[in-house]
């Protein structure tokens, strides 16, 4: 009987811990999203999230403030920089990116050489400069 009680108590403890952790995550989300809102709005959103069991409160549910707008613009800028990063060319010669390296197909059919391949100087690849990709025109 004692062992059964002990097991039940441990299960109850676990359940309470899980419930507390869920409630804690919702509080964190609401505080991050409604940093400059009033205290009443905080309570409303927290209670709404708890009732719905929603652990991740979306930004669009909460009325937008200046801080949120700036955060949205920052996220937009970060996505834009991310797209810029995707346009950064991959190094094609060691750590370097040399645009001219590659295979070229002749645009004119009359020319004798149909394709020309250009490679870097393998005997002198140059010094490495950390993890930076150096662009050589």
């Amino acid at each position, binding site marked *: 009987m004692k062992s059964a009680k002990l097991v039940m108590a441990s299960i109850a403890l676990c359940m309470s811990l899980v419930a507390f952790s869920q409630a804690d995550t919702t509080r964190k989300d609401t505080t991050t999203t409604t940093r400059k809102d009033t205290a009443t709005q905080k309570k409303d959103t927290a209670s709404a999230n708890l009732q719905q069991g929603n652990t991740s409160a979306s930004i669009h549910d909460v009325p937008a403030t200046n801080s949120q707008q700036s955060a949205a613009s920052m996220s937009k800028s970060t996505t834009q920089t991310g797209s810029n990063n995707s*346009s*950064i060319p991959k190094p*094609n010669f060691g750590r370097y990116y*040399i645009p001219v*390296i*590659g295979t070229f197909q002749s645009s004119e059919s009359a020319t004798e050489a149909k394709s020309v391949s*250009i490679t*870097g100087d393998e005997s002198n690849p140059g010094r490495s400069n950390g993890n930076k990709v150096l662009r050589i025109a």
Partner: protein
Amino acid sequence: MKATLEGVTGTKFYALLKAIPGTYKVPVQMQDDNSIQEGTVIYDESNKQINICLGCGYQDNNPSEALTTIDDSSNEVSVKTAKSKSKVKAKTVINFSGTKKDQATAGIGQ
């Protein structure tokens, strides 16, 4: 920076990067018993197009001019007469213009 070109002539030859981006000079060189004439290589990265001209020479002031105005006299055979023997000197111009096939762009560390 030195770049090696293959496919324009029968042999490989090299070109040297100049101060203007995308502009290379092909110096006079001997590759596998073949003499490579001085030339100009201009690569336009915006439209991925390359222009190679061997025998056009290289002009430091305006390298692109060597590609546009190809000297017509270079194709002609010039005959130099000495006292007893005649020298025949032929200068050929090889042109190549093409577009890049592979355009690999990816993020760093991907």
